[in-house]
């Protein structure tokens, strides 16, 4: 369970994981998605998905991505995104 120090918001990791996974599956119209599966290969889909993911997590979890948060490596799979969101919620 994560609790944002400044707001007292509580978001369970499993909820974050589930929401992120559901968003990616809807965006890419996937039937299933492993949490370790590499989301990005080289090419244009990378930037589309990355932009959508940042907009989604900021809006959904009321957090602000900045500087190093925006590196594509932070968005390479569902687990990484979940960790990033958890870290931001605890900042």
């Amino acid at each position, binding site marked *: 369970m994560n609790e944002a120090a400044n707001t007292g918001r509580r978001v369970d990791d499993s909820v974050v994981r589930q929401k992120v996974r559901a968003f990616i599956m809807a*965006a890419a119209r996937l039937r299933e998605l492993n949490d370790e599966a590499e989301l990005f290969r080289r090419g*244009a*889909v990378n*930037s589309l998905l990355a*932009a*959508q993911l940042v*907009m989604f997590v900021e809006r959904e979890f009321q957090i602000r991505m900045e*500087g190093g948060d925006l590196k594509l490596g932070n968005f390479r799979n569902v687990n990484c995104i979940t960790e990033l969101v958890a870290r931001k919620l605890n900042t």
Partner: protein
Amino acid sequence: MTQSALQADPVSAAAEGRSEVEFETFVRERIAGRAGATDSRQCLDERMVHELGRRGYLGSLVPDHQFGAKSVDLQTYGARLEEVGAACAAVLSLFTAHDMVARTVATWGSMEQREKWLRAMCDGGAIAAFALSEASAGSNAEQITTAAVRTSGGNYLLNGDKKWITVGQIASVLLVFARTGDSISAFLVERARPGVTVSPITGMLGFRGSMLADVSLRGCEVPSSALVGGLGRGYPYILTSALTYGRYSVACGAVGIARACLYASFDYVRRREQFGKPIGEHQLIQHKLAAMATDVCAARLLCREAGAMLQRDDPAAMVQVCMAKYFASQAAFRCATHAVQIHGANGCSDRYPVERHLRDAKILEIIEGSTEIQELILARYGQA
């Protein structure tokens, strides 16, 4: 097949109860009639541009009527741009560039940036341009070399050369993408700022009234408050988000150009007689009309679907927009090619609008992501 059958579109804006009569009248009276002159003179009518702002037609993608915006939903916007595309490609390009910047500022800008720019962008007091492309960076945006370096005083110093900047000649503010170390950031740069030089580009194949410009930045110093969305947000985040709206605009405008070609052809085949009857009665001409009519309807439906998905924030909207742009831009070129063929030698003359439509339609396949870039996106989509 009749023209009226096509006009009885069950999903048209009018059928959905939206009154766009005023907008359509304005397009017909103030834009369509000047399209030929806009093309030949290679410039927009500045009074018309001011009137677009005064009537609240600019910046209508700024949501929730913020800062004086006369906001409309994405489908209404798409229907408007179909009208504009059918009338004049250069005005379509004004809407595309200006509104994608206004939407970007509304989405990613700070409160200070929104307060400073959005009201002016919505009333036409400030025309905005999107400054991404460079001589060596087109489809591959990561290749830009324009750089922004932080000064000891906390400002940014911009150096570089932007190319093919739509409405660059009349823009008072530019959304400039620049390297900031190993990332790419976006800056709002006033044209009047020292170090900014704008040079008109003429002699293009199509969209000749778009007032393209080269924009040179030499030691152009901007405050850190000009940075949009924070350091490193320019690529891919802001760029991709902005281009989605740009692609949607182009796709809807492409439907308009395709429609204009179809209607011009319908009109021509009734009047033009060969072998003792109107050429519309010849089956090889009917074949072309059938293909054009199907292209127009199919492209319009793809655009409507993309607009609806954008409106409801559907996660798959960005890809749907790519698909709409991919199809509609090619459909417009196919329709323009057929239209010129149907018109024969007349179609090669600037006394008939299909000649202009053909040149403009080719441009649609290149701007806001070429056909090949859309193919890359669509082919890879779903493979994550």
